[in-house]
């Protein structure tokens, strides 16, 4: 599994480059909006990727609450963080697209506003994780993730109804796509999904490594205080992980 990562990373990068080339050069120019419309090819896929990642976070959070599996928690953190990054991109490319097309930076349309609220919820999730020192932070964060998920449909409905009362331009446009555009759009959709998955995977490995380092450090301070002879298993909440595994040397199991 670990060896697959660099290969897949290179593949994803290549796909990204190809997708971008298609979006910027090959795709036909849109009639009404002009070239600016090309932002669509990464604004929408980024949103899609962010939502998928937030969904992964929800599933991982629930899994953690049920089974208390630390891997689920590591996945929850990773997907939340990477999701926020992609969501930030959506919130920045949205206004950059809106300005030349509609003359305004922001429109409180359903999708963009819902994305903003989702971004706020997940930033608060990350803040909670950062500011909470207790060993039960994962549980608190998982509960917050569930609350956030419960909130999302309510957010969407309330903004949707508000918009029907006070209509404004919609970013992202509606309507059907020229089939050539559709192809390139789907390609970029797939590409960004892969990109999101790869970054999440990398972040997950970082998180896991961080925990192993923390554990090894804790072990060391334990052994340093009590001298040699203390069982290496003492205070090892992650169980099977041992420091020697990182360096690949066979260690005491």
């Amino acid at each position, binding site marked *: 599994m670990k060896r697959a990562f660099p290969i897949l990373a290179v593949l994803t990068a290549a796909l990204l480059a190809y997708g971008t080339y298609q979006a910027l050069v090959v795709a036909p120019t849109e009639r009404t909006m002009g070239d600016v419309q090309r932002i669509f090819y990464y604004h929408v896929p980024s949103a899609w990727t962010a939502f998928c990642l937030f969904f992964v976070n929800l599933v991982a959070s629930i899994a953690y609450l049920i089974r208390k599996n630390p891997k689920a928690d590591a996945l929850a953190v990773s997907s939340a963080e990477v999701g926020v990054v992609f969501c930030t991109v959506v919130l920045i490319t949205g206004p950059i697209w809106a300005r030349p097309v509609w003359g305004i930076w922001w429109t409180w349309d359903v999708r963009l506003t819902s994305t903003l609220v989702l971004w706020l919820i997940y930033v608060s999730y990350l803040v909670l994780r950062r500011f909470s*020192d207790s060993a039960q932070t994962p549980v608190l964060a998982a509960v917050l993730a569930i*609350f956030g998920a419960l909130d999302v449909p*309510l957010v969407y409905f309330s*903004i949707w109804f508000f918009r029907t009362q006070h209509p404004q331009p919609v970013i992202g446009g509606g309507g059907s796509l020229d089939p050539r555009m559709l192809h390139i759009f789907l390609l970029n959709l797939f590409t960004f999904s892969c990109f999101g998955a790869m970054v999440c995977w990398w972040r997950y490995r970082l998180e896991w490594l961080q925990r192993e380092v923390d554990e090894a450090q804790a072990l060391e301070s334990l052994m340093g205080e009590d001298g040699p002879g203390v069982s290496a298993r003492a205070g090892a909440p992650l169980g099977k992980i041992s420091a020697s595994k990182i360096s690949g040397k066979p260690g005491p199991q």
Partner: protein
Amino acid sequence: MSSLRSITFATLTKDIRLEWRSKDALNSMLFFSLLVVVIFSFSFDPNAEESREIAGGLIWVAFLFSAVVALNQTWARELRNQVLDAYRVSPAPAAALFLAKALGNFVLVSLLEALMVPLFVVFYNLRALGPAWQLIPVALLGTWALVVNGTFFAAMSIRTRSREIMLPLLLFPISIPAVQAMVEATRILLAGDGSARFWIVLLLTYDVVFTTACLALFETILQAE
């Protein structure tokens, strides 16, 4: 489930009694609410026609800030006296404790609102052009929406750094649909501009969803601290 009811009631009356004995906190909160109304009145000229349009929004934003001030100290007493540890080991259902706390906060925040509303009406010359009685369910449902989640997040924030800022940080994003509903409903009812039914139903849905979630997950939070 009479045990749930009796425990909730007992805890609630204890809290109200304690709160009443130490009127300082209550008085400073009341004064804070008054200050908020006055500052808003200075910032948003009450005579301008536009201000009456946004009075609904102003009222609820003012409530929101006062509620946060009140909610921030909601678990302080429990924390000081290690009461939470006692609750953790007692056989009483955690939901009862939560419900009592939330109800107590609801009473407190409603008291603050009862002070602020007449002031707003006076300063902004408010008149309800729509069915004014509908403002009551809006106020009740809206206040409960803020209080139920606020009490829950306050419990979650207990062992975090910067506890006081953590509560609004967690509460505000999640409360956005509820706040939008409250503000829109109030605006509609004050301006007589259509039906507030959708927003009242949304508030009701929000309250049901989150009250259930809070009651279901409070045990988890309590054990986690």
